């Protein structure tokens, strides 16, 4: 089981001081939060993608590459990468590049994005969001698995003889999670390809996710990737922790009351009862998180949302200390003791390499010489069977 942090990348006014961080301050802060995630012993850091204020994270691979360079163990991922408004060719290229720089310490989670006005900024239409996501992923899946792709679809310019570079590290594509809470087609696509399925598990009652996770597990088995228990599931979660419950509630309430999404709506008490948000002691967060597997089944990745609603950096870092020191070690021990032995391990680059090659050396691609026409042709790499067609001297 992997534990980590996911951030939406919102820049929100601190309601207790009235101060809104600058973009620059918040970007510096997120790097520190990611570094702290590793320092306190967690495994994963995920950043969202947005293209409108008050968010900063328009360019996740740039941020994640920087974090990768300043950490050693941390696995970097997204929450989510927009499979709708991004060209799948650019996703293939940028994330393969990140995969090389991070030495495989990355994967990504795909999502659709639900902000209508963003779509036309990238030449798309939210009314086509679902078919766009499905078609784009079908292409992305091929771009990482076939050296040369001919392709034609509904939404993107056709491709003839296209090679996405660099090829994935060790010729093993980054692991992909599909994030969704209410779209059976996304769960079906995740199951079809044997990819992971992630339910954000914040802001809504668990029933929203539970049904879709069960459907994904059934379909994962149907497509022959393994048993339902071996399906790869990730969950979010949200917490504010203090040594004792009353302090947690007192400290978090002003942030809760003004938070994006749920502020000015339900009371904190109602919201914590109806959604997975826990505001309380380390033990309360442990107890609540251990309940997740009871309705989702044993799962591979648990991410926590800890840095939103205007919480200042110092508070977030303190939260991560509490999480890392008092919550995660217990969760690791307890989930390990409870998990079904049939459960698949969390996906990592090393495991995927081993699954593909066993003890053999992974493929390392070396391009053929540039023929001078800036086009790679039909067999771009030296280990492909077809002889490169050099012009006669």
């Amino acid at each position, binding site marked *: 089981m992997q534990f980590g942090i996911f951030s939406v990348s919102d820049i929100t006014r601190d309601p207790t001081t009235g101060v809104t961080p600058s973009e620059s301050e918040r970007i510096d802060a997120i790097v520190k939060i990611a570094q702290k995630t590793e320092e306190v012993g967690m495994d994963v850091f995920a950043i969202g993608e947005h293209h409108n204020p008050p968010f900063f994270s328009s360019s996740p691979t740039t941020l994640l590459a920087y974090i990768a360079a300043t950490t050693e163990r941390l696995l970097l991922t997204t929450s989510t990468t927009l499979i709708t408004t991004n060209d799948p060719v650019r996703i293939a290229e940028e994330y393969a590049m990140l995969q090389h720089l991070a030495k495989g310490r990355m994967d990504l989670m795909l999502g659709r994005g639900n902000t209508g006005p963003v779509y036309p900024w990238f030449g798309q239409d939210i009314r086509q969001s*679902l*078919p766009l996501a*499905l*078609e784009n992923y*079908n292409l992305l*899946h091929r771009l990482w698995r076939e050296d040369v792709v001919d392709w034609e*679809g*509904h939404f993107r310019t056709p491709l003839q003889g296209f090679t996405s570079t660099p090829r994935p590290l060790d010729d093993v594509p980054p692991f992909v999670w599909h994030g969704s809470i*209410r*779209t*059976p*087609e*996304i769960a*079906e*696509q995740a199951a*079809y*390809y044997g990819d992971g399925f992630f339910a954000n598990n914040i*802001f*809504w*009652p668990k*029933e*929203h996710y539970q*049904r*879709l996770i069960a*459907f994904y597990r059934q379909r994962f088995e149907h497509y022959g990737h393994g048993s339902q228990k071996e399906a790869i599931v990730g969950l979010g979660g949200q917490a504010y922790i203090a040594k004792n419950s009353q302090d947690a509630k007192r400290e978090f309430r002003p942030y809760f009351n003004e938070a994006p*999404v*749920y502020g*000015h*709506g*339900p009371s904190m008490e*109602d*919201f914590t009862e*109806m*959604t997975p948000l826990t505001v309380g002691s380390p033990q309360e967060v442990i107890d609540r998180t251990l309940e997740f597997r009871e309705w989702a089944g044993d799962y591979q990745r648990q991410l926590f949302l800890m840095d939103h609603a205007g919480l200042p950096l110092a508070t977030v870092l303190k939260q991560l200390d509490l999480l890392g020191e008092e919550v995660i070690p217990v969760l690791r021990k307890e989930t390990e003791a409870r998990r079904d032995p049939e459960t698949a391990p969390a996906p990592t680059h090393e495991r995927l390499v081993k699954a593909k090659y066993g003890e053999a050396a992974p493929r390392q691609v070396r391009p053929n010489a540039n023929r001078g026409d800036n086009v790679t042709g039909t067999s771009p790499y030296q280990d492909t069977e077809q002889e490169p067609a050099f012009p006669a001297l």
Partner: protein
Amino acid sequence: MTDASREPASPDQGSTYRLVVVNAGISDPSSTKLLADRVAQRVGAVAGEHGHRVAVTVLDLRELLPEMSQAVSSQLFGPKFTAAIEALRQADGIVASAPVYKAGPSGLFDTFFQVLDNDLLIGKPVVLAATAGTARHALVVDEQMRSMFAFLRTLVVPTSLFASTEDWQDRSLGSRIDRAALELVLLMESGFEKKLRGDGWSSYQHEFGSAGGTELGIDLGSDLMKLATGGALPPRKKG
């Protein structure tokens, strides 16, 4: 998903109809609630004459006010709201009664129906009723409330009920209530809603988990499902 657990409403042997009264009146008693209660009472009487029984559930929307803000802001339904949705889902007939404020049905009434799933009330027979301090609001039921219930794909009875101050001393209000009650009973007897849910349910738009959490059918043969599993969309239509 059709609800097979419900008793078929057969006119031959007499049925028990579940009537849900949605009352947006604020005071207690209120003229809005009084009007709704009179309709419910007459529905019970007419159904009795037809050999049926009526079980009435009253939803006083005022009691949902504390849960309304989270329902509107976050689509989070508290326990009372959840119970109200479940009652409506199981209803064979509905009486919906609103006070007129500022030339329209009260915001509480509109908001309640606006946060429900689009497909929760498809095909259900409904009596619409409104009260106001002046007869100048008489068309609110037909011009404003009826259009929302058309959107919700309900079957609103032909007779709309409206009572302003002077109507309470006019016997013709009683005869209109009788008429609406008969219309509702006839529609419930017809079994229209159940037949529609049996035969035509899939032709309406649904989202996964809609219809009060019961819409869980997944069509694995749809164009989108084919696309999800590595297929292509059907070719674009020319022109």
